């Protein structure tokens, strides 16, 4: 698919995520605006890091909450990372779910914490699927833009993202 089509697809996907209430448009736009011509992969890198970090944190939390005697202090770092990263990319529902988890852990309520973690996981999976699509679209756009000009004029001669601030 040509570049304009991919850009449109990306735009529609983001709009649908915003309408669904799972993505904060302003915040995600901030991440997109950081992309520069010398770092055109920036958005996919950040989203990949987000997914990796979230999965690691959720795994750790499941491990700690699965113990007979839960050491609630050990949960702090992972929860903090989940809350922070979901806020940074605008993963709205995931951040809300993490706030509930924070409360349950603060009250040292194992049952509630497990329920809250399930919700966090659900919201993560819900957004992760679409984030992976964003990553694929970004990568396709990058592939096209970093290729030399073809005779059909579909590819740019070089990266088209320039940001001079």
């Amino acid at each position, binding site marked *: 698919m040509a570049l304009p089509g991919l850009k449109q697809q990306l735009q529609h996907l983001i709009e649908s995520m915003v309408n669904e209430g799972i993505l904060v448009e302003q*915040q995600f736009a*901030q*991440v997109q*605006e*950081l992309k*520069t011509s010398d*770092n055109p992969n*920036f958005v996919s*890198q*950040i989203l990949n*890091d*987000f997914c990796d*970090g979230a999965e690691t944190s959720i795994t750790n939390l499941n491990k700690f909450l699965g113990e007979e005697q839960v050491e609630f202090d050990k949960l*702090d*770092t992972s929860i*903090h*990372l989940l*809350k*922070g*990263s979901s*806020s*940074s*990319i605008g993963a709205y529902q995931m951040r809300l779910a993490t706030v509930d988890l924070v409360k349950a852990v603060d009250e040292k309520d194992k049952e509630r914490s497990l329920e809250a973690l399930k919700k966090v996981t659900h919201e993560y999976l819900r957004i992760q699927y679409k984030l992976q699509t964003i990553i694929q679209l970004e990568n396709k756009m990058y592939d096209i833009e970093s290729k030399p000009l073809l005779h059909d004029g579909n590819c740019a001669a070089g990266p088209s993202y320039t*940001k001079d*601030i």
Partner: protein
Amino acid sequence: MESGFSSSSMGFMENVEQPHVLAVDDSDIDRKLIEKLLKNFSCKVTTAENGARALEFLGLGDHPNHCNISKVNLVITDYCMPGMTGYELLKKIKESSVMKEVPVVIMSSENIPNRISKCLEEGAQMFMLKPIKQSDIKQLRCHLMNCRS
């Protein structure tokens, strides 16, 4: 953006074309985001994932050396970090005779007035609420370079 400003003017970033900023955050993503934000505003950036590494870089760690003193124009640090908080890092910097003049900016995802005033009283130049936006960095550069709008 929620921010507090301390009243002392910092000459540290005036006339510095490409300020060198040390950015400290335990979150991978936030480190990358703040690094890009700063680079897009013409800063040279070094990142550290915790307070101990930050102190080492500043030459204030366990094996003190003064190699990096003149190189850092600003430290920007997350407040909530395991091990050493941003507040504790701020204190150590302000206690150091060689580094105390370096402006320190604290970032936090939580808007807690006590936290903010505690940091400002300890000598933080600014307090910024996460998630940090481009406009925050613009304001930061302007403030630290004493811009008049």
